[in-house]
């Protein structure tokens, strides 16, 4: 029930206080009652919950997380390569 999905705002209807959002390619409306006036703009990423926008997604923070994850992967990858090289250096079959 609370597994709200990220969506993108594509249109705002000020009169009815609703936003039209794109959720994984599906377009639907969401109430803006829980957001401050003018806080939500077209292009914003938002979290949708049972017909309402409950918050905006902090784009910079999301990007920062994704960047950190990439770094972790690269670092692990490097460590893996290094340990492969080291393993090779210490190969028991070489009789060293």
């Amino acid at each position, binding site marked *: *029930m*609370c*597994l*709200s999905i*990220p*969506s*993108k705002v594509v249109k705002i209807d000020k009169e009815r206080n609703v936003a039209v959002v*794109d959720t*994984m390619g599906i377009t639907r409306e969401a*109430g803006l*009652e*829980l*957001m*401050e006036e003018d806080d939500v703009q077209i*292009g914003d*990423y938002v*979290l949708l*919950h*049972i*017909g*309402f926008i*409950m*918050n905006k*997604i*902090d*784009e910079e*923070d*999301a*990007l920062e*997380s*994704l960047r950190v*994850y990439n770094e*972790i*992967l690269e670092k*692990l990858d490097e460590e893996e390569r290094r340990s492969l090289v080291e393993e090779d250096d210490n190969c028991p079959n070489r009789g060293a």
Partner: protein
Amino acid sequence: MSQLQLKDLYDGFRNPEVIEGFAKLINEEAKKLPKPVNIMEVCGGHTHSIMKFGLPQLLPKNINFIHGPGCPVCIMPKERIDHAYILAELDDTILVTLGDMIKVPGSHGSLQDARAKGADVRFVYSPLDTLKIAQENPDKKIIFFAIGFETTTPMTTSLIDIVIKKEIKNIFFHINHVTVPEVMVELIDSRDEHVDSYNNRIDAFLGPSHVSVITGSKIYEKFPKKYNRPVVVAGFEPVDVMEAILMIVRQFNEGRCELEVEYKRLVSYDGNKKAQALIEKYFEKASLFKWRGLGNIPDSGYRLKDEYAYLDAEHIYADILPKEEIEDHKLCICGDILRGMAKPNECTIFGTACKPQTPLGSCMVSSEGACAAYYKYGNLL
């Protein structure tokens, strides 16, 4: 053009390689742990993610999950479902509630059963759908049976706000909103009647995702400070959960006990203030709310303020709504399970009298409950 694509918001936080990457880091870090760590994920949304993505298999033996109270649906006591059932059966009413409530059994049966017997029950996606039902049925009383944690509470108050502002005369409310910090306190700081002690095995909490979007992380301050349990607020995606686990393990290794937020892209310290203001305007804390499996928990529910009693179905129909408590099943050990003191298969009626089709306790009601998960995934856990 923004750099972030909608797709990144899904895929980026489910990337199997990143999950693997975190698994490696956690396994390294966990070698240094002085003793095993039991992490309770409070919300069933996390349980769901943990199961679906098989996270326990990726973690070392000294990190365990204790599956929490799950969700506002599972913990709904029979008494409250009976209220809904009785209200739905009235000739001049339509009972409206969220789809999640369909199957939860009360003592007369579930709302699905009520509907099969001819009661007018409507399951909706959003509280706002109630407006249309009210408009199309001017001669009926529409009762919105409101459920949910803090995540869902402001949506109910928005509907109340609209009903009052537009002077809609045929919508009423039966309020069953419950709050998270109070049940966390209950689990770690109150006497357990079954084992007659204050025992629990919870070492740290994975804080709920979307509850915290509304409340802000501030509601968990007291857990590290007063109760000595670290809290890391985490998103629902598997990468979020893994990152949060790493953060918890690091806290133990570094001798810290803090409130941290992994889910910064959506959770601030203060939360959504407009939503909080709406809740405050219409609701006050009910002195007790009974949770299925855990009993009465002080201050853990909301009720409509007295000035809005004219909208309150519990008040209006007080004569026909029973007030007696209904005992949980004698053999059910949900309370112990939620405190991490017992595993579902230690319950003597697990899988026999109590199964997902015929749940006798809260942990078996939804697929997110600990017993239901055990039933489904067996010894994978």
